[in-house]
């Protein structure tokens, strides 16, 4: 549904020096720098798939989404969305896509949501019966039926975001771009939006691209992610693959029996490389160690300590991705790194 081949976008940005002299100088001559916002991005998204686009601020996520939604022209490369070049903006393309921007209201501020939806019904030429049916379904599912006749500007952020979602999905798009749809929302509103996106995906099987800084959005919604760093795609693969290839450690959490004698943990752990004690208390110990050392280490700990409970946990995915985002150099992950995913083991519970 979405095919992207070596897509690039460069921006020419004016740079102005600070202060009054800088402003005066800029009136006559301005320095222009070229910013490579997206560098040769290549990927695809299939029907019914939610692709997570992860990157730091300014990494190029939104620029990529804007190109695929047809808002801006690329500097190079090619893209096809539903068989169309997005930036040509054919009516057929526009009728089947939607873009939801968490940071920018798209509905008409002074109008009640009901009036905005009626206008969108005309814009997308939605037949009356289908419009009524879809609107009833969306408002009931998102529980905003009572707020339909309130001006958009008077709604809470969460209610407004739900209205934005309804507005974007009224015409039942086949491709949906979600740019930080849960930004600024409280936890229950975030959960409601996530549940709804999953439900919508199940019902309509659209291709979706989601950008978010909230790892919970990514973990709950996306099977596959793209990691973008300074305009370059550095990882494309299943979420579990990030853990397999980039989370080289696991964490052993031990719950000791009450009154257990203290031991010299450093001596017990030996000289194993890369083993780190994250927490050491009278009843709780947490140790981070390389994946391949976990079985030996766990066995040794269970035999030497009075363990009440033991759990082996994956390192927090946000930490792994953060490490990837801020790593310097490198490029797109090597093909062998993008090999077929293996099943990620759930935290292994080992009874003492």
């Amino acid at each position, binding site marked *: 549904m979405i095919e992207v081949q070596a897509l690039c976008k460069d921006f020419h940005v004016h740079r102005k020096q600070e202060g009054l002299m800088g402003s005066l100088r800029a009136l006559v001559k301005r320095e222009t720098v070229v910013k490579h916002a997206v560098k040769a991005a290549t990927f695809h998204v299939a029907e019914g798939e939610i692709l997570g686009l992860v990157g730091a601020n300014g990494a190029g996520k939104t620029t990529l989404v*804007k190109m695929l939604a047809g*808002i801006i022209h690329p500097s190079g490369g090619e893209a096809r969305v539903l068989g169309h070049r997005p930036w040509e903006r054919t009516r057929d393309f526009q009728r089947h896509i939607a873009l939801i921007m968490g940071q*920018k209201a798209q509905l008409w501020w002074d109008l009640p949501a009901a009036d905005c939806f009626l*206008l969108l019904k005309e814009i997308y030429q939605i037949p009356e019966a289908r419009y009524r049916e879809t609107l009833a379904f969306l408002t009931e599912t998102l529980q905003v039926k009572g707020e339909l006749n309130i001006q958009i500007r008077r709604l809470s952020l969460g209610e407004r975001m739900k209205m934005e979602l309804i507005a974007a999905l009224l015409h039942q798009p086949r491709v949906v771009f979600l740019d930080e749809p849960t930004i600024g929302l409280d936890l229950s509103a975030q959960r409601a939006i996530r549940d709804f996106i999953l439900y919508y995906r199940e019902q309509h099987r659209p291709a979706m691209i989601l950008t978010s800084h909230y790892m919970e959005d990514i973990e709950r919604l996306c099977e596959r992610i793209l990691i973008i760093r300074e305009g370059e795609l550095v990882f494309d693969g299943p979420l579990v693959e990030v853990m397999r290839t980039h989370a080289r450690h696991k964490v052993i959490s031990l719950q000791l029996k009450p009154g257990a004698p203290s031991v010299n943990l450093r001596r017990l752990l030996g000289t194993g490389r890369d083993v780190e004690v994250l927490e050491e208390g009278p009843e709780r110990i947490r140790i981070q160690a390389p994946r391949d050392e976990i079985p030996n280490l766990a066995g040794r700990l269970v035999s030497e300590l009075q363990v009440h409970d033991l759990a082996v946990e994956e390192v927090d995915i946000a930490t792994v991705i953060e490490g990837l985002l801020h790593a310097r150099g490198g490029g797109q992950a090597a093909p062998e790194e993008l090999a077929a995913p293996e099943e990620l083991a759930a935290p292994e519970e080992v009874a003492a």
Partner: protein
Amino acid sequence: MTRALRLYSHVASVEARKAMSYRADFWVNVILSFFAQLGVMWYLWQAIFATTGQATIGGWDLPAMLRYYILVILAGKLVRGQEMMAGLSQDIYDGGLSRYLLYPASYWAFKYAQHLGSLLPSLVQFLLFFLCLPLLPGGVGDFHPGAAALLMGALAMALGNLLYWLLQLPLQAVAFWADNVWSLGVLLRFISGLLGGAMLPLDLFPDSARRVLEWLPFAYLFDLPVRALMGQLDPAAWLKGMAICAGWCLALYVVSGKLWRSGERGYTGVGI
């Protein structure tokens, strides 16, 4: 075609409802703004006639001059509308254009429909004061337009409205390269007011200037509709004016289209 008409009439209707959302602003716009402008003109021209001691200036006596200004104020608001308020340049500047690029609808038609819908307060003002005009004292209300004058005036205002909107388009498209083009809008307002007859009747210009003005677009914004309403134009003169006005509309449409296509390639969709 019918579907498109239905969409754009719906857009205009939504905009008209928005214009009525804020009651106090609506009535200030309709009533106070008229009296504020009229007051300035009334006392200015009374002072000019009193100072010069002349019965007529450029063929206009004081009641006719005041009548002209009343009609210019009323027709001018219908021709100019809300100007840059809902303009392309603002959409480019703040990234508001992005949402329109997503819709399967013409951006220009959408914005023009919004522009027409936002004329509602100006239309109410026009009807209200136009009907009251014959009641004014001192010969100012000596005004009895026939059906032909009303029809020619209404059509000239409609075409003038389109012309003014199209005059703004290329200027607003400059925002693709310059971000902020507010000063160009102010310049257009001043030049069109001066050369279009909103500041003073074009009869007061020298003959040579009037001959040039005839081929510029500005005279068809205010001078043509007001003269038509006052019954000063015969059908042939009106038709010639309308033809020149339509020619300018077409030329501006073509130029704006080229600028738009070139400019939107560099649009960055800031703000999202």
